[in-house]
């Protein structure tokens, strides 16, 4: 905001005016950050689809290039930001920065740079893992988690870059930044949901592991980003965008023809195989917003207990019956995506997609796991509240 130019600065009127102008526009690095995270998220989805369809993987697949482009774009953005801030004599630039190891720059730039280095670190680690344990298409492996942390760093870093600006902005720029924030936050939710997708399949919707996987962390993101968005229905909007993006990908990817390039080929796929139908996050996110709006004046722990419980309850209420539908013949079409199978899957195993897996072997294990999901959801909600409040206070 123009009026937040510090009193202590000996800023000339012309500089103030320029600063006001800059503060009122969406800066280039925000656009750059949004583009970088978009490219990473799209590349990641594409890469997973690539593994299910084509199989053959090199450093130079288009999907990898999209991820790398996002990482490089974010890195260049941050390098320029940090160096231009550190070595600039523009006091407005320096005054809106933090200092780390002698360098100055926006907080988000440092976190994004950290994420970029972490992504780079995951590459030799992942390469060794592949050589040692075989090329894997496992999402949750130690090197992939390092990569995920790197992507998280880049994503949240870009979000902080945007937020610092948004929290100081007003007017048209503020509205534009609001919309960009909701979109960027939905991408981060999408990345999180991809990370847990091994446990969020329709065949697991009658197992507690499904609810436990979604309850750990997802309320944190929805509450925090919803709160930071400043929008009354922030979490619902973010969940809606997440679902829309996933559905669009599920409907668009199969349009493109492709064939496996690695054996053994069990299913002779002829098009890109998409990921499955998204989790119906819109419903529990709506209840999160409802609780936050209804009990706005109550304490944080009260809010956490109510919203965390509401999240799990709404998730079960909607996913349990939806699971029955998803394994039924009615879902075996392009609309719900229950007709897509990776080339590694023999037709004799398609039936597994149309029945519920028994993940917990006993009833007590099921209830214990569901109890863990409830506790995790409450704690995640509490972390989300704290994180969200912190995000709303970010200024640099």
């Amino acid at each position, binding site marked *: 905001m123009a009026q937040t130019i510090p009193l202590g600065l000996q800023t000339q009127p012309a500089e103030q005016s320029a600063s006001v102008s800059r503060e009122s526009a969406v800066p280039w690095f925000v656009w750059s950050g949004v583009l970088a995270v978009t490219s990473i998220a799209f590349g990641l989805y594409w890469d997973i689809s690539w593994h299910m369809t084509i199989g053959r993987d090199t450093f130079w697949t288009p999907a990898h290039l999209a991820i790398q482009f996002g990482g490089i774009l974010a890195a260049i953005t941050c390098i320029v930001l940090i160096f231009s801030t550190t070595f600039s004599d523009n006091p407005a630039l320096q005054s809106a920065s933090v200092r*780390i190891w002698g360098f100055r720059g926006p907080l988000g730039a*440092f976190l994004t740079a950290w994420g970029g280095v972490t992504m780079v670190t995951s590459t030799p680690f992942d390469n060794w893992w592949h050589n040692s344990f075989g090329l894997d298409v496992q999402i949750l492996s130690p090197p992939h988690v390092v990569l995920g942390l790197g992507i998280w760093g880049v994503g949240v870093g870009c979000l902080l870059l945007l937020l610092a600006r948004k929290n100081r902005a007003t007017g048209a720029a503020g509205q534009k930044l609001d919309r960009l924030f909701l979109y960027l936050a939905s991408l981060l939710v999408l990345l999180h949901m991809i990370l847990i997708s091994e446990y969020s399949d329709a065949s697991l919707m009658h197992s507690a592991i499904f609810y436990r996987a979604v309850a750990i962390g997802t309320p944190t993101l929805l509450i925090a980003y919803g709160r930071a968005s400043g929008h009354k229905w922030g979490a619902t909007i973010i969940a809606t965008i997440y679902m829309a993006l996933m559905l669009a990908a599920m409907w668009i990817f199969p349009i493109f023809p492709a064939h496996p390039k690695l054996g*053994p080929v069990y299913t002779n796929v002829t098009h890109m195989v998409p990921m499955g139908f998204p989790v119906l996050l819109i419903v529990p996110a709506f209840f999160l917003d409802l609780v936050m709006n209804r009990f706005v004046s109550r304490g944080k722990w009260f809010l956490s207990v109510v919203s965390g419980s509401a999240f799990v309850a709404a998730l079960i209420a909607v996913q349990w019956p939806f699971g029955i539908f998803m394994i039924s013949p009615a879902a075996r079409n392009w609309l719900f995506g229950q007709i897509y199978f990776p080339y590694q899957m023999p037709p004799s195993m398609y039936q*597994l997609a149309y029945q519920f897996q028994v993940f917990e072997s006993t009833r007590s294990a099921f209830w214990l796991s569901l109890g863990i999901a409830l506790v995790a959801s409450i704690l995640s909600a509490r972390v989300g509240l704290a994180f969200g409040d912190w995000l709303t206070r970010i*200024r640099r």
Partner: protein
Amino acid sequence: MNRSIVIVFFMLLGAPCLAHVGSPDVYFQGDAGPYHLTVMVRTPQMIPGVAEIEVRTDAPGVHQVKIVPLYIVGTGSKYPPPPDVLLPSKDDPQYFTGKLWLMASGSWQVRIEADGDRGAGTLAVPVPAFARSTLPMQKGLGALLSGLMILLVLAIVSIFGAARREGQLEPGQPSGPSQKRAARTAMAIALAIVLGLLSLGGWWWKVAAAERAQQMIYKPPQLLASLLPGGKMLLRVGESAWHTRRPEAVSTKLIPDHGHLMHLFLIRVPQMDRFYHLHPAEDKGGVFLDDLPAISAGHYQIFADIVRESGFPDTLVAEIDIPEIPGQPLAGDDSAAIAPALLPDAPGNVDFLLPDGAHMVWERQPGQLRANQLLWFRFQVQDAAGKTATDLEPYMGMAGHAEFVRSDLSVFAHVHPDGSASMAAVELAQASLPGRSSAPTASAGNSMPGMDMGGTRASSQLSGVAFPYGFPKPGLYRIFVQVKRKGYVETGVFDTWAN
């Protein structure tokens, strides 16, 4: 079913395995239509992994060689992926090389499509694929990752500190003592959390790595050997979770390999001066019985070759102490040999005196034999007068059999003139080629003149036999070479060093 789970599931199914002991690479020769090819497949240490393929044509005129991997049997054999083109050597137009992903464990075939002046032809080479071991992290890489980890930990802690100290201040507002104090607290908490997460991650890494290794690494089934009264040997083949997890790509059911469900080799150790090649009969599922021939007392190493119905071979290993057994006379395809003790500093030999006064001569090329290279092992039989014998007969359908054994027993390979692949797998693979009969025909196109089975072009000289093979590592080896003459199996024994 979650697609990612499915992928992981099949990735786990996908670790390949192989017969022989310590000799995972495949050496093979055969005809792709009008072209005779010699093939070497270096299998990867871990599956999924990249195999290296080398193909040499006997004669010029081949313009392009393409390779396709697929399973020998089952659903995975129905849809071949697009072929890869091998690169011709710039110096040698008859030599082609390339790489191939083997995505899963199991009984693979590499289809080699040769195209040239005389048209096109296809050869199927069986390649048992299996994960052998995980790779330890190299010190340099470990140091690099450790350094990066320390840097990243310090950086994220500093970021947390900066976030707390200045992140929420309005632009230009200096941080005061309270912010600095809070920043220090935030950094301490962040460091504790990060170290906790790292410990948790380290534990998960160990568990995940151990689980993957346990699921991926090939383990041959256990073989329990015991002696029964009356000079009988009982062999019990154990269960293997590695095999049962791969019902189609590996399978557990056995098929005969040139007429026998099991080829049993007894070698008296450590001197390797007694050698028996026997063929126990299956008594009931997984239990074999053999009426032992006359056997000298001693401690014996057992190698037992079996082939699964997928074409996947296993070599089972055991040890047993055997007393002097008068035993039965050798019968059927059973054979035995007596040789001088293998000495640790054995100079090597190229001439072996056979019991009937004839000699078996190794036509060894001068110079050192290098490990991990395709070598041709050619042998002749000369009668007592030194005249080359031309009366070799097929022995179990083959022109000959050769067993390569390293002095420390870490390598055992049962090789035929067609190469190191099991003949049962060869038959299955050839039968799976488009347009071929599903009924297996042994060594199709490679039969010795006048023989129903076996033999190769190189071995079709009735006076000798040749084997394509490569030593998997340097060391002292003893080679048992078996041919049949006048109804008797004769075994030549040769020692050599590989560098």
